[in-house]
Protein backbone atom coordinates (compact mmCIF):
# COMPACT_ATOMS: atom_id res chain seq x y z
CA UNK A 1 0.00 0.00 0.00
CA UNK A 2 2.83 2.32 1.01
CA UNK A 3 4.55 1.47 -2.26
CA UNK A 4 1.40 2.35 -4.21
CA UNK A 5 1.13 5.60 -2.33
CA UNK A 6 4.71 6.51 -3.09
CA UNK A 7 4.32 5.51 -6.73
CA UNK A 8 1.28 7.72 -6.99
CA UNK A 9 3.17 10.55 -5.38
CA UNK A 10 6.09 10.16 -7.74
CA UNK A 11 3.74 10.24 -10.70
CA UNK A 12 2.01 13.29 -9.32
CA UNK A 13 5.28 15.08 -8.63
CA UNK A 14 6.46 14.21 -12.11
CA UNK A 15 3.32 15.59 -13.65
CA UNK A 16 3.61 18.78 -11.67
CA UNK A 17 7.27 19.17 -12.55
CA UNK A 18 6.49 18.85 -16.23
CA UNK A 19 3.56 21.18 -15.81
CA UNK A 20 5.57 23.72 -13.85
CA UNK A 21 8.19 23.72 -16.58
CA UNK A 22 5.58 24.47 -19.18
CA UNK A 23 3.98 27.31 -17.22
CA UNK A 24 6.85 29.52 -18.22
CA UNK A 25 10.50 29.98 -17.60
CA UNK A 26 11.48 30.58 -13.99
CA UNK A 27 12.93 33.99 -13.45
CA UNK A 28 16.29 34.53 -11.81
CA UNK A 29 15.74 35.97 -8.37
CA UNK A 30 18.24 38.80 -8.32
CA UNK A 31 17.18 39.84 -4.84
CA UNK A 32 18.80 36.71 -3.51
CA UNK A 33 22.20 37.55 -4.90
CA UNK A 34 25.01 40.06 -5.05
CA UNK A 35 24.44 40.24 -8.79
CA UNK A 36 24.03 42.20 -10.83
CA UNK A 37 26.39 44.69 -9.33
CA UNK A 38 25.53 48.06 -10.79
CA UNK A 39 28.03 49.17 -13.40
CA UNK A 40 30.11 46.08 -12.96
CA UNK A 41 30.32 44.33 -16.31
CA UNK A 42 33.72 42.72 -16.21
CA UNK A 43 33.97 42.00 -19.92
CA UNK A 44 34.11 44.29 -22.92
CA UNK A 45 31.06 43.77 -25.16
CA UNK A 46 33.24 44.77 -28.11
CA UNK A 47 35.36 41.70 -27.41
CA UNK A 48 32.86 39.18 -26.09
CA UNK A 49 29.58 37.92 -27.47
CA UNK A 50 27.31 35.76 -25.33
CA UNK A 51 24.86 33.51 -27.12
CA UNK A 52 22.51 30.59 -26.75
CA UNK A 53 23.94 27.96 -29.05
CA UNK A 54 22.16 26.94 -32.24
CA UNK A 55 22.02 23.37 -31.01
CA UNK A 56 21.60 24.11 -27.34
CA UNK A 57 19.71 21.32 -25.65
CA UNK A 58 17.50 21.27 -22.63
CA UNK A 59 16.64 18.01 -20.95
CA UNK A 60 15.22 16.81 -17.71
CA UNK A 61 15.57 13.71 -15.56
CA UNK A 62 13.02 13.37 -12.82
CA UNK A 63 13.10 10.06 -10.96
CA UNK A 64 14.50 8.73 -14.15
CA UNK A 65 12.24 5.74 -14.60
CA UNK A 66 9.37 8.09 -15.25
CA UNK A 67 10.84 9.87 -18.18
CA UNK A 68 14.01 8.12 -19.11
CA UNK A 69 14.58 8.86 -22.76
CA UNK A 70 12.02 11.62 -22.62
CA UNK A 71 13.77 14.91 -23.09
CA UNK A 72 11.57 17.92 -23.17
CA UNK A 73 12.36 21.54 -23.58
CA UNK A 74 12.65 23.42 -20.35
CA UNK A 75 10.17 25.94 -21.68
CA UNK A 76 12.85 28.42 -22.60
CA UNK A 77 14.59 28.41 -19.23
CA UNK A 78 17.90 28.66 -21.00
CA UNK A 79 17.02 32.05 -22.47
CA UNK A 80 16.36 34.00 -19.24
CA UNK A 81 19.28 32.24 -17.60
CA UNK A 82 21.62 33.13 -20.47
CA UNK A 83 20.20 36.64 -20.49
CA UNK A 84 20.90 37.13 -16.79
CA UNK A 85 24.45 35.88 -17.28
CA UNK A 86 25.02 37.99 -20.38
CA UNK A 87 23.67 41.16 -18.78
CA UNK A 88 25.94 40.65 -15.82
CA UNK A 89 29.03 39.91 -17.88
CA UNK A 90 28.77 42.43 -20.70
CA UNK A 91 25.65 44.50 -20.05
CA UNK A 92 24.18 43.17 -23.31
CA UNK A 93 21.36 40.78 -24.11
CA UNK A 94 22.55 37.44 -25.51
CA UNK A 95 22.43 36.65 -29.16
CA UNK A 96 20.58 33.61 -30.34
CA UNK A 97 22.92 31.68 -32.56
CA UNK A 98 24.78 34.59 -34.11
CA UNK A 99 26.01 33.98 -37.64
CA UNK A 100 28.54 36.78 -37.61
CA UNK A 101 30.52 37.01 -34.42
CA UNK A 102 32.43 40.06 -35.65
CA UNK A 103 35.81 38.71 -34.65
CA UNK A 104 34.81 38.53 -31.00
CA UNK A 105 35.38 35.79 -28.50
CA UNK A 106 32.12 33.89 -28.10
CA UNK A 107 30.65 32.36 -24.98
CA UNK A 108 28.01 29.85 -26.01
CA UNK A 109 25.47 28.10 -23.80
CA UNK A 110 25.39 24.58 -25.19
CA UNK A 111 23.16 22.65 -22.81
CA UNK A 112 20.98 22.90 -19.75
CA UNK A 113 20.01 19.78 -17.83
CA UNK A 114 17.49 19.70 -15.02
CA UNK A 115 17.54 16.77 -12.60
CA UNK A 116 15.37 16.12 -9.58
CA UNK A 117 15.96 13.50 -6.89
CA UNK A 118 13.52 12.31 -4.28
CA UNK A 119 14.93 11.71 -0.82
CA UNK A 120 13.55 8.48 0.47
CA UNK A 121 12.00 9.66 3.68
CA UNK A 122 8.37 10.09 4.52
CA UNK A 123 5.31 10.35 2.36
CA UNK A 124 6.36 13.72 1.05
CA UNK A 125 10.12 13.37 0.79
CA UNK A 126 12.41 16.28 0.27
CA UNK A 127 13.57 16.80 -3.27
CA UNK A 128 16.94 17.96 -4.54
CA UNK A 129 16.77 19.86 -7.78
CA UNK A 130 19.94 20.16 -9.75
CA UNK A 131 20.50 22.20 -12.90
CA UNK A 132 23.66 21.83 -14.93
CA UNK A 133 24.74 24.32 -17.57
CA UNK A 134 27.50 23.81 -20.09
CA UNK A 135 29.21 26.69 -21.83
CA UNK A 136 31.86 26.79 -24.53
CA UNK A 137 34.33 29.62 -24.96
CA UNK A 138 35.77 30.14 -28.43
CA UNK A 139 38.42 32.63 -29.43
CA UNK A 140 38.06 35.22 -32.22
CA UNK A 141 39.39 32.63 -34.67
CA UNK A 142 36.68 30.13 -33.71
CA UNK A 143 38.88 27.68 -31.85
CA UNK A 144 37.61 26.29 -28.56
CA UNK A 145 39.50 27.85 -25.69
CA UNK A 146 37.69 26.38 -22.66
CA UNK A 147 34.62 24.38 -21.69
CA UNK A 148 32.74 25.24 -18.53
CA UNK A 149 30.26 23.22 -16.50
CA UNK A 150 28.26 24.93 -13.77
CA UNK A 151 25.88 23.53 -11.19
CA UNK A 152 22.91 24.96 -9.34
CA UNK A 153 21.19 23.03 -6.55
CA UNK A 154 18.41 23.38 -4.03
CA UNK A 155 16.95 20.85 -1.63
CA UNK A 156 13.58 21.49 -0.08
CA UNK A 157 10.31 19.99 1.03
CA UNK A 158 7.34 19.42 -1.20
CA UNK A 159 4.11 20.68 0.25
CA UNK A 160 0.86 18.87 -0.19
CA UNK A 161 -2.16 20.41 -1.88
CA UNK A 162 -3.25 21.41 -5.34
CA UNK A 163 -1.87 24.93 -5.03
CA UNK A 164 0.92 24.31 -2.51
CA UNK A 165 2.54 21.50 -4.49
CA UNK A 166 3.31 23.40 -7.71
CA UNK A 167 4.17 26.47 -5.65
CA UNK A 168 6.78 24.59 -3.63
CA UNK A 169 8.23 23.08 -6.80
CA UNK A 170 8.49 26.47 -8.47
CA UNK A 171 10.09 27.94 -5.35
CA UNK A 172 12.70 25.22 -5.32
CA UNK A 173 13.34 25.44 -9.07
CA UNK A 174 13.77 29.18 -8.79
CA UNK A 175 16.30 28.79 -5.98
CA UNK A 176 18.22 26.17 -7.98
CA UNK A 177 18.24 28.41 -11.07
CA UNK A 178 19.43 31.37 -9.04
CA UNK A 179 22.15 29.25 -7.49
CA UNK A 180 23.19 28.17 -10.99
CA UNK A 181 23.27 31.77 -12.15
CA UNK A 182 25.49 32.81 -9.23
CA UNK A 183 27.88 29.91 -9.72
CA UNK A 184 28.05 30.66 -13.45
CA UNK A 185 28.92 34.31 -12.99
CA UNK A 186 31.42 33.50 -10.25
CA UNK A 187 33.05 30.85 -12.42
CA UNK A 188 33.24 32.94 -15.57
CA UNK A 189 34.52 36.03 -13.80
CA UNK A 190 37.34 34.01 -12.31
CA UNK A 191 38.38 32.46 -15.62
CA UNK A 192 41.85 33.67 -16.55
CA UNK A 193 41.34 32.70 -20.20
CA UNK A 194 38.12 34.63 -20.51
CA UNK A 195 39.69 37.62 -18.79
CA UNK A 196 42.60 37.53 -21.20
CA UNK A 197 40.28 37.42 -24.21
CA UNK A 198 37.69 39.96 -23.18
CA UNK A 199 38.60 41.63 -19.90
CA UNK A 200 37.93 45.35 -19.54
Amino acid at each position, binding site marked *: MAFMKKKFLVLLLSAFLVASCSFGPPIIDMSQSDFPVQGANPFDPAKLLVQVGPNATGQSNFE*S*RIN*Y*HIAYELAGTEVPYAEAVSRQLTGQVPETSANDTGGKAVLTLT*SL*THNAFLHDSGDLPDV*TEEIIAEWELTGPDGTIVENF*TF*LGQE*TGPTEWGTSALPKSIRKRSLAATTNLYLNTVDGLVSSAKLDKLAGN
Partner: protein
Amino acid sequence: MTIRTCKKTIALLLLISLAGYAGCSLERVKSQALQPQDKDLDNVKDSLVFLVVNIKQPRARLKLRNFVAKNLTSQETYSFAFHDNFILGSSQLQHTVNGDTVEHLVFLDLPPATYSISSMEFFDFQYGIATGNLTGNTTTYLNYDLFKPVNFEVKADGVTDLGQLNIQIIQSTQTYTTENAYSGLQSTYKLTNAYMHTMSGSIRRLDGILNFTTPGHRDIDLKKAKGRYPALREKVFHKGKMWIEE
Protein backbone atom coordinates in the same frame (compact mmCIF):
# COMPACT_ATOMS: atom_id res chain seq x y z
CA MET B 1 4.02 -42.72 -9.77
CA THR B 2 6.17 -45.81 -10.09
CA ILE B 3 9.17 -46.58 -7.88
CA ARG B 4 11.40 -46.14 -10.88
CA THR B 5 9.96 -42.66 -11.55
CA CYS B 6 10.39 -41.78 -7.88
CA LYS B 7 14.04 -42.82 -7.98
CA LYS B 8 14.58 -40.73 -11.06
CA THR B 9 12.94 -37.72 -9.43
CA ILE B 10 15.03 -38.10 -6.25
CA ALA B 11 18.21 -38.45 -8.30
CA LEU B 12 17.30 -35.33 -10.26
CA LEU B 13 16.61 -33.39 -7.07
CA LEU B 14 19.95 -34.51 -5.65
CA LEU B 15 21.71 -33.38 -8.79
CA ILE B 16 20.00 -30.02 -8.67
CA SER B 17 20.95 -29.61 -5.01
CA LEU B 18 24.56 -30.52 -5.72
CA ALA B 19 24.65 -28.09 -8.61
CA GLY B 20 23.24 -25.38 -6.35
CA TYR B 21 25.81 -26.16 -3.67
CA ALA B 22 28.61 -26.06 -6.21
CA GLY B 23 27.32 -22.74 -7.48
CA CYS B 24 27.30 -21.33 -3.96
CA SER B 25 30.81 -22.50 -3.29
CA LEU B 26 31.95 -20.46 -6.28
CA GLU B 27 30.20 -17.37 -4.98
CA ARG B 28 32.66 -14.57 -4.82
CA VAL B 29 30.39 -11.79 -3.72
CA LYS B 30 31.94 -10.21 -0.65
CA SER B 31 30.27 -6.88 -0.64
CA GLN B 32 27.35 -5.04 -2.07
CA ALA B 33 27.66 -1.58 -3.40
CA LEU B 34 25.79 0.94 -1.35
CA GLN B 35 22.50 2.35 -2.29
CA PRO B 36 22.74 6.11 -2.23
CA GLN B 37 20.42 6.57 0.71
CA ASP B 38 21.52 8.44 3.74
CA LYS B 39 21.30 5.50 6.10
CA ASP B 40 23.56 3.43 3.85
CA LEU B 41 26.17 6.14 3.61
CA ASP B 42 26.25 6.48 7.40
CA ASN B 43 26.62 2.77 8.10
CA VAL B 44 29.83 1.95 6.32
CA LYS B 45 31.75 -1.09 7.59
CA ASP B 46 35.12 -0.21 6.13
CA SER B 47 35.86 2.87 4.02
CA LEU B 48 33.44 4.77 1.83
CA VAL B 49 34.52 5.01 -1.78
CA PHE B 50 33.03 7.39 -4.30
CA LEU B 51 33.44 7.31 -8.05
CA VAL B 52 31.57 8.59 -11.06
CA VAL B 53 30.89 6.15 -13.85
CA ASN B 54 30.05 7.75 -17.17
CA ILE B 55 28.73 5.54 -19.93
CA LYS B 56 28.57 6.95 -23.39
CA GLN B 57 25.60 5.59 -25.22
CA PRO B 58 22.41 6.27 -23.35
CA ARG B 59 20.26 5.15 -26.26
CA ALA B 60 21.28 1.59 -25.56
CA ARG B 61 20.05 1.77 -21.96
CA LEU B 62 23.16 0.12 -20.70
CA LYS B 63 23.17 -1.67 -17.38
CA LEU B 64 26.28 -2.37 -15.32
CA ARG B 65 26.91 -5.96 -14.36
CA ASN B 66 29.63 -7.99 -12.69
CA PHE B 67 31.80 -5.22 -11.49
CA VAL B 68 34.48 -7.26 -9.70
CA ALA B 69 37.46 -5.84 -7.84
CA LYS B 70 40.33 -7.79 -6.28
CA ASN B 71 42.08 -6.64 -3.14
CA LEU B 72 45.74 -6.99 -4.12
CA THR B 73 46.82 -7.43 -0.50
CA SER B 74 44.31 -9.95 0.81
CA GLN B 75 43.47 -11.41 -2.62
CA GLU B 76 39.80 -11.23 -1.71
CA THR B 77 37.41 -10.29 -4.46
CA TYR B 78 34.45 -8.00 -4.21
CA SER B 79 31.63 -8.26 -6.64
CA PHE B 80 29.51 -5.18 -6.79
CA ALA B 81 25.99 -5.89 -7.70
CA PHE B 82 24.79 -2.33 -7.49
CA HIS B 83 23.60 -2.80 -10.98
CA ASP B 84 22.10 -6.25 -11.02
CA ASN B 85 18.66 -5.53 -9.75
CA PHE B 86 18.51 -1.96 -10.75
CA ILE B 87 18.10 -1.34 -14.40
CA LEU B 88 18.91 2.10 -15.65
CA GLY B 89 15.79 4.05 -15.18
CA SER B 90 15.15 2.76 -11.68
CA SER B 91 14.78 5.38 -9.02
CA GLN B 92 16.81 3.09 -6.79
CA LEU B 93 19.90 3.50 -8.91
CA GLN B 94 20.03 7.17 -9.49
CA HIS B 95 21.56 8.22 -12.72
CA THR B 96 21.25 11.15 -15.04
CA VAL B 97 21.45 11.52 -18.76
CA ASN B 98 23.61 14.43 -19.80
CA GLY B 99 23.71 14.79 -23.55
CA ASP B 100 25.14 11.55 -24.88
CA THR B 101 26.30 10.25 -21.51
CA VAL B 102 24.67 8.34 -18.67
CA GLU B 103 26.24 9.36 -15.39
CA HIS B 104 26.22 7.30 -12.19
CA LEU B 105 27.43 8.45 -8.81
CA VAL B 106 28.62 5.17 -7.31
CA PHE B 107 29.35 4.43 -3.65
CA LEU B 108 31.24 1.36 -2.44
CA ASP B 109 32.22 0.05 0.99
CA LEU B 110 35.75 -1.42 0.95
CA PRO B 111 38.70 -2.04 3.26
CA PRO B 112 41.65 0.29 2.61
CA ALA B 113 43.91 -1.33 -0.01
CA THR B 114 44.83 -1.28 -3.67
CA TYR B 115 42.33 -2.99 -5.95
CA SER B 116 42.28 -4.23 -9.48
CA ILE B 117 39.25 -4.64 -11.70
CA SER B 118 40.00 -7.25 -14.28
CA SER B 119 37.82 -9.58 -16.25
CA MET B 120 40.75 -11.77 -17.22
CA GLU B 121 40.86 -13.54 -13.89
CA PHE B 122 37.27 -13.33 -12.85
CA PHE B 123 34.01 -12.49 -14.44
CA ASP B 124 33.31 -10.65 -17.59
CA PHE B 125 32.76 -7.00 -17.24
CA GLN B 126 29.35 -6.86 -18.75
CA TYR B 127 26.77 -4.45 -19.88
CA GLY B 128 23.19 -5.35 -20.37
CA ILE B 129 21.33 -3.78 -23.20
CA ALA B 130 17.72 -3.25 -22.41
CA THR B 131 15.39 -3.54 -25.30
CA GLY B 132 11.73 -3.01 -25.87
CA ASN B 133 9.84 -0.59 -23.72
CA LEU B 134 10.88 0.79 -20.37
CA THR B 135 9.35 -2.06 -18.42
CA GLY B 136 10.86 -4.75 -20.63
CA ASN B 137 13.37 -7.23 -19.35
CA THR B 138 17.04 -6.96 -20.03
CA THR B 139 18.13 -10.18 -21.60
CA THR B 140 21.35 -9.45 -23.38
CA TYR B 141 24.84 -8.60 -22.35
CA LEU B 142 27.60 -6.93 -24.21
CA ASN B 143 30.63 -8.88 -23.08
CA TYR B 144 33.93 -7.20 -22.91
CA ASP B 145 37.20 -8.65 -21.70
CA LEU B 146 39.02 -6.04 -19.76
CA PHE B 147 42.56 -6.80 -20.85
CA LYS B 148 43.97 -3.73 -19.18
CA PRO B 149 42.83 -3.80 -15.56
CA VAL B 150 41.51 -0.69 -13.89
CA ASN B 151 43.31 -0.18 -10.58
CA PHE B 152 42.40 2.04 -7.68
CA GLU B 153 43.49 2.82 -4.14
CA VAL B 154 41.20 3.16 -1.14
CA LYS B 155 42.45 5.31 1.71
CA ALA B 156 41.88 4.57 5.37
CA ASP B 157 40.49 7.92 6.43
CA GLY B 158 37.47 9.80 5.25
CA VAL B 159 35.84 9.19 1.88
CA THR B 160 38.05 8.19 -1.03
CA ASP B 161 37.07 10.07 -4.17
CA LEU B 162 38.33 8.06 -7.12
CA GLY B 163 37.18 10.52 -9.75
CA GLN B 164 35.70 9.50 -13.06
CA LEU B 165 35.65 6.22 -14.91
CA ASN B 166 34.49 6.81 -18.46
CA ILE B 167 33.29 3.91 -20.56
CA GLN B 168 32.44 4.25 -24.21
CA ILE B 169 31.44 1.76 -26.85
CA ILE B 170 33.84 2.62 -29.61
CA GLN B 171 33.37 -0.28 -31.94
CA SER B 172 30.87 -3.00 -32.39
CA THR B 173 30.08 -3.98 -35.91
CA GLN B 174 28.58 -7.37 -35.34
CA THR B 175 25.29 -7.97 -37.00
CA TYR B 176 22.79 -9.62 -34.75
CA THR B 177 19.30 -10.88 -35.02
CA THR B 178 16.42 -10.14 -32.75
CA GLU B 179 13.23 -11.98 -32.34
CA ASN B 180 10.06 -10.23 -31.45
CA ALA B 181 8.68 -12.06 -28.46
CA TYR B 182 5.10 -11.41 -29.47
CA SER B 183 5.01 -11.84 -33.22
CA GLY B 184 7.88 -14.29 -33.57
CA LEU B 185 9.23 -12.20 -36.43
CA GLN B 186 12.97 -11.85 -36.71
CA SER B 187 14.78 -8.67 -37.60
CA THR B 188 18.43 -8.04 -38.25
CA TYR B 189 20.24 -5.01 -36.98
CA LYS B 190 23.78 -3.83 -37.06
CA LEU B 191 25.46 -1.93 -34.28
CA THR B 192 27.78 0.58 -35.84
CA ASN B 193 29.74 3.40 -34.33
CA ALA B 194 28.16 2.84 -30.96
CA TYR B 195 24.73 3.76 -32.19
CA MET B 196 21.88 1.49 -31.29
CA HIS B 197 18.95 1.69 -33.63
CA THR B 198 15.40 1.46 -32.45
CA MET B 199 14.61 -2.14 -31.80
CA SER B 200 12.16 -4.51 -30.32
CA GLY B 201 12.38 -7.98 -28.91
CA SER B 202 15.53 -9.28 -27.34
CA ILE B 203 19.05 -9.17 -28.66
CA ARG B 204 21.31 -12.17 -28.41
CA ARG B 205 24.79 -11.87 -27.06
CA LEU B 206 27.10 -9.64 -28.97
CA ASP B 207 30.66 -8.50 -28.63
CA GLY B 208 32.00 -5.02 -28.74
CA ILE B 209 34.97 -2.94 -27.83
CA LEU B 210 34.69 -0.64 -24.90
CA ASN B 211 37.08 2.19 -24.29
CA PHE B 212 37.90 2.86 -20.64
CA THR B 213 39.48 6.09 -19.50
CA THR B 214 40.13 7.61 -16.10
CA PRO B 215 40.14 11.34 -16.73
CA GLY B 216 40.53 12.27 -13.07
CA HIS B 217 38.53 14.32 -10.60
CA ARG B 218 36.04 17.09 -11.12
CA ASP B 219 34.99 19.42 -8.32
CA ILE B 220 31.49 19.51 -9.75
CA ASP B 221 31.01 15.79 -9.07
CA LEU B 222 31.63 16.28 -5.36
CA LYS B 223 29.23 19.21 -5.34
CA LYS B 224 26.58 17.08 -7.01
CA ALA B 225 27.09 14.26 -4.51
CA LYS B 226 26.95 16.51 -1.48
CA GLY B 227 23.89 18.26 -2.80
CA ARG B 228 22.02 15.04 -3.45
CA TYR B 229 23.04 13.14 -0.30
CA PRO B 230 22.93 15.13 2.95
CA ALA B 231 24.88 12.37 4.75
CA LEU B 232 27.94 13.34 2.72
CA ARG B 233 27.98 17.00 3.58
CA GLU B 234 30.00 16.69 6.78
CA LYS B 235 32.32 13.98 5.51
CA VAL B 236 35.94 14.61 4.56
CA PHE B 237 36.86 13.57 1.03
CA HIS B 238 40.35 12.60 -0.08
CA LYS B 239 41.38 12.32 -3.70
CA GLY B 240 42.21 8.71 -4.43
CA LYS B 241 44.04 7.31 -7.41
CA MET B 242 42.41 5.29 -10.18
CA TRP B 243 44.34 4.28 -13.24
CA ILE B 244 44.39 1.86 -16.15
CA GLU B 245 47.25 -0.61 -16.09
CA GLU B 246 49.42 -0.51 -19.18
